[in-house]
Every structure is written in structure tokens, then in C-alpha cells.
């Protein structure tokens, strides 16, 4: 058959964010593909240099609509490191709680998308319904479903009371049983297994040579998690499991993400159990002393990297953000060879694209 080139994006039912791919196919076989990025580039790193640190907080929260909290957390940690202050333990725990709720919501969102792409619309509807629970908690304690504005330099803006604890525990219990059910579907439903098992496998060596991080790397047997390997509070005081799988295919990526969701629900519970009392923020000076710092956090999609340089003024001299999606995107052309046209959605979804994060 002749070679046909099909365009996927910038607008396509498959994509939630703009991204352009040209995929060469012959019949139902995919020969290869090329990628074009930059449709949502907003120049955020440059904009951050023109604003004060406090204003930057609100700018950086808008890098991504799914993992907005982890971006501000990492930024605050960078600024606090330059200031040389330690935030109160209670603030650290509230930040951690929000991070884990965000991970639950991000992973469930992704699960729904992969279910939709393989034609399991029912699971899509159910996971997005369950995801609402974690959004409800976040809305209840911070006032925002997507942009929470919880962090401030020197602590957090919100505090939890006894009613919050009870509400969160009640919802988490419900969420726990729902996640168990989801795992059951992806582990036993034959058609879902047939669509994901053995699709676009990635070897450990390939993952390491491309520097891919997060659930994709862990699904290929790379045992790496910033929360455990470069711990920051509150993760240095709490026990949790790092989920890995040696499969490396689309099914392993699904498995890792569902298991991580379950682990995050447990983590939320133990954060609540160990929540210390006290203040939630400290006063900080407006100007940040000269210096530079690198901070890493574990975002839902993997390692999030911030480089911050200060020249002693109230505005950053340079801010560099490296998001996990970019490294995963670099593997996309390799994954898009020797598969079926029907596997394109599975491969694309497996990357867990966050184009807004990658473009900034």
C-alpha cells in the first residue's frame, strides 16, 4: 500500500492540548512520526523575571492546569532555600497533603483518558466521577478546584480544622474502594488487556539514555522517585512504597499509575494521622539574598526541576523550569514505529502528555 501521512493535531479528538504530529502510515501499520511543539508557549520563564517573587507565585501556578500545586511548591522551596528559612512542620504537611491529592486527581484523569482511547467510555466516566472526590477535598480546604493558591513563600495560606479532617477521611475511604475496583478492571478485563499488553514496550536502557522520569520510567523497571531518593519534607518522615513494574508496555504504565493512586490515598491518610500542630506560615523579607539554587520535586508525571538565581533584588534574575513531559515526548517518535494505527492513542495517552507544562 502507498504511504499516507496523517496529521494528528494541533486540533484532534485525541488531544486535549495543542500538539502537532505527522504520522506516516501504510495501511494499518505505522512507519514513523515527527513531532512539533510550542503551540502553548507563553514565555513564562521570561515573564517571571519581570515580576516580584510574590507575583511570580500566581504566574507559576498557571503553568499547568493539572499539577498547579506542585509547581508553586517547588518554586516556594527554591525561594525559601535562598532565604535560608525553614517553614513550620504543619505547613510542610499541608503542602504534602495537597501534592498527594493532586497526584490522585492527575492519575485518575489520565486513567480516564486511556480508557476512553481504547473505547472503554464507561470507565472514563467512572474515573472522572471518582476524580471529582479529590477535587472536592481540594475545593473544600483551599477554595479552588484547579488553581488552589495554597502556597505562599514561608508556608501555606490555609489551615485545617477538625471538620476538615473528618471530611477528608470520609472521602478518602470512598476513594480507596473505587481505586481497588479500577485496578480490578485493568487487571482482568480481557479486551482492555488485549489493547494495552505488549504495546510500545520501552526498555530500561532506553529510558535511562533519554532521561525519562516518573511513572513511565518506573513502569520500565527504573526504581527512582524523588520523594524517596532526594527526600523533602514531609516525605522524609513518612513511609510509602515506590511502585515499579518491569513490563515497560502500556499495560505496565497503567498498572503503575493505578497502584500509585492507591499509595497516594494511603499517604494522604498517614499525613493526616501525623499532622503536627502549630503555625502554618512565617514572615519573610521581600528581597531575596544573592545566590542560586536547584530544587527537585516529584510531580504526578515525574521529576520537576527548578533552577532559581537571585541578584539580591525582589525579582528573580533567572528562573528555569524543566518539566517531566519534555523528556517523555522525546521518546514518542521511537514509540511510534512498528505499531498499528489503532495503537497510536494508547501510545500517546501512555506518555501522559502535559503540553502546557512542556511549552510553558
Amino acid at each position, binding site marked *: 500500500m502507498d504511504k499516507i501521512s496523517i496529521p494528528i493535531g494541533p486540533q484532534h479528538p485525541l488531544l486535549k492540548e495543542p500538539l502537532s504530529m505527522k504520522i506516516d502510515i501504510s495501511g494499518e501499520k505505522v512507519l514513523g512520526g515527527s513531532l512539533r511543539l510550542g503551540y502553548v508557549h507563553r514565555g513564562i520563564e521570561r515573564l517571571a523575571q519581570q515580576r516580584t517573587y510574590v507575583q511570580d507565585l500566581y504566574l507559576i501556578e498557571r503553568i499547568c492546569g493539572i499539577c498547579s500545586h506542585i509547581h508553586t511548591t517547588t518554586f516556594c522551596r527554591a525561594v525559601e532555600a535562598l532565604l535560608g528559612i525553614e517553614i513550620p512542620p504543619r505547613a510542610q504537611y499541608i503542602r504534602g497533603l495537597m501534592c498527594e491529592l493532586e497526584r490522585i486527581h492527575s492519575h485518575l484523569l489520565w486513567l480516564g483518558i486511556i480508557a476512553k482511547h481504547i473505547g472503554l467510555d464507561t470507565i472514563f*466516566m467512572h474515573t472522572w466521577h471518582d476524580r471529582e472526590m479529590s477535587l472536592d477535598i481540594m475545593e473544600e480546604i483551599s477554595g479552588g478546584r484547579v488553581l488552589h493558591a495554597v502556597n505562599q513563600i514561608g508556608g501555606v495560606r490555609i489551615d485545617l480544622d477538625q471538620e476538615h479532617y473528618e471530611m477528608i477521611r470520609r472521602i478518602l475511604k470512598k476513594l480507596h474502594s473505587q481505586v481497588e475496583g479500577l485496578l480490578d478492571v485493568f487487571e482482568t478485563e480481557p479486551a482492555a488487556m488485549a489493547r494495552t499488553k505488549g504495546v510500545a514496550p520501552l526498555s530500561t536502557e532506553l529510558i535511562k539514555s533519554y532521561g525519562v522520569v516518573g511513572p513511565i520510567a518506573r513502569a520500565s523497571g527504573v526504581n527512582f522517585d524523588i520523594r524517596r531518593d532526594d527526600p523533602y519534607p514531609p516525605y522524609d518522615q513518612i513511609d510509602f512504597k515506590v511502585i515499579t513494574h518491569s513490563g515497560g508496555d502500556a499495560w505496565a504504565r497503567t498498572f503503575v499509575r493505578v497502584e500509585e493512586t492507591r499509595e497516594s490515598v494511603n499517604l494522604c491518610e498517614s499525613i493526616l494521622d501525623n499532622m503536627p500542630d502549630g503555625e502554618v506560615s512565617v514572615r519573610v523579607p521581600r528581597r531575596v539574598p544573592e545566590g542560586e539554587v536547584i530544587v527537585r520535586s516529584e510531580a504526578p508525571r515525574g521529576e520537576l526541576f527548578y533552577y532559581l538565581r537571585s541578584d539580591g533584588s525582589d525579582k528573580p534574575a533567572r528562573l528555569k523550569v524543566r518539566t517531566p513531559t519534555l523528556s517523555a515526548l522525546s521518546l514518542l517518535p521511537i514509540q511510534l514505529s512498528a505499531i*498499528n494505527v489503532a495503537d497510536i492513542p494508547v501510545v500517546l495517552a501512555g506518555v501522559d502528555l502535559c503540553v502546557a507544562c512542556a511549552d510553558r
Partner: protein
Amino acid sequence: MIRSLFYLFVFPGFIFQIICGLTFEWIDRKLLARFQRRVGPPWYQPLADLIKLFSKEDLLPERANDAVAALLPLISLSAVLTAGLYIPVAGFSPYSFEGDLIVVIFLMSVPTLAYYLAGIVSVGIYSILGGGRSLLQFFSYEVPLLITLSGPAILGGSWSVAEIMHAQVELGPFIIYQPLGFILAVVGLIGKLKRDPLDIPKATSEVVGGSLTEFSGVKLGIWHLVMNVQAVVGIFLLVDLYFGWTKLANPLTSVSIFIIESLIIAFTLSVTSAIFARLRIDQLAGLGWKVLVPLALLQLGFVILMGV
């Protein structure tokens, strides 16, 4: 004259079948919504959608063949409506003749071929991909479906749907003798209707809208109507072939039984579309030729042995 016009246009012809088609669409959408924790559309939604599509602008790409693209949905609609005329509805079949089962099966294949051609004449990349897929799918489900549907014909000793239906008054419903055949026929029907999990030719995430990607307005509306009427005709066919028709003293009871039997099949279609993931085209071809065909032959062999 007036009587045959009534048969053609009111019952069991045009108007009745279109009403049934829209009702089926509503039941299907409502059930699916309830399975997915949604509320679902009100009863008039399919009709409202149809009116909306009919009032919209009709556009096709510049290089597309407009006349053929307009003709294809009309041919498909007339084919499925004609097929519906030969299928007894609640035991009533004015045009039944010996061999109409074969005519019905032939007419039911017309929309699939028209769907393939629609993909080719509307020249979109996704349309051509979807069209090619629909033909591949056709070859995967049609053979087991044909073998399966010959089971009731052999058991009933006739190739007329009405005769097969009446034969079940004596022998009892054929689903008792051919439970496997019934399941295979439902799978074949799902493939024919391109419903989830066999909606490979129109999988949104893979080929956007399949053959109908470039269609809009009246043409798309008629295509939707074709799919719904085809579903109803297929359901009535399965009810006649596998459940039969029992004429009771009270006609209302017999009609209710027919409606309930149709609803059971409609419910089965909705449940399967809700709980299964979409197959890949190579997986479907494997399923069709390695699993469905041997099973259909097994069922056919059993029926022939029983006849002897």
C-alpha cells in the same frame, strides 16, 4: 392500492420504522448514560438531533463527488427500510415470500458497502482509513453471521422469515436449540451496526469520524437514521428467528411479549457497548475467522444433525 400504500409508508414501513429507530436510539443512549452515572437525554433528543442536523449547512470537501455522496445515504436508507418490510413485526408481514431471509441479509449489507464508498468519495484521509476499515470489518463478521443465520432456516425448513417464525409455534423458540447461534448472531449484529466494542471503522480517537468525517447536515442526519433503522431491523430479525411468535388469545399480550423480547436484545447491545474495550482490526479479524467461524460451523453441524 391504499392498503399497500399504508403498508409501505405507515406500518410496517417508513414511519413505523423511523419511530422505532429513534426510540431505539433514545433507549440506547439513556441506558448507556445510566451505566456511566450520567442522567442521559430526554425522550425527544434523537428527534431534536435529527431536526438540528437537517437544518444545518451541508458541506463537503472541494474534490468530493457531491452527487454520489448525496445518493449513498439515500440508497442505504431505502435498503434498510425495504429489508424492514420483509421482517414480520409482531407476527404481521404483508410481503413475506419464500427466500426473503436472503433478500434481507443482502439488503442489510448495502449500508456497509455504501459506508465504504462514502469514505472514498469524500476524499478525507480519515474517511479513506475508516472506509477501508469498514470493509475489513465486513469480511470478519459477515461470514460467521451468514453461517449462523442459516441455522434457524434449516431448523425451520424454510428461507422465509415468516415461515421460520411460525415453525417455532410447534418446535418451541429456536434459542433453546441454538443458544450459541443466538450469541454469534448478536456479535454479528454488533459488527454490522459498527457499535462499541466493534466500532473500529468510526473510532473517534483513531480515525476521528471514520467514513463520515467530512459529512454534515442532511446527509449526516440520514446516515444516523440509517444506523438506527438498521439496528431496529436487525433486532426484529433476531427476535423472529430465535424467539418466534406466539399468537395468544389476547393480541395485546402477544404484542407485549414481542416488545419485551426486542427490548431484551436492545438491552444486550447497550450492555456490551458499555463494558467492553474496542478491539483492534487485526484482533477482530482473528476473532472472526479463528473463533466465530468454527463456533458457527459447530452450531450449524448440531442443527443439521438434529434435523436428521
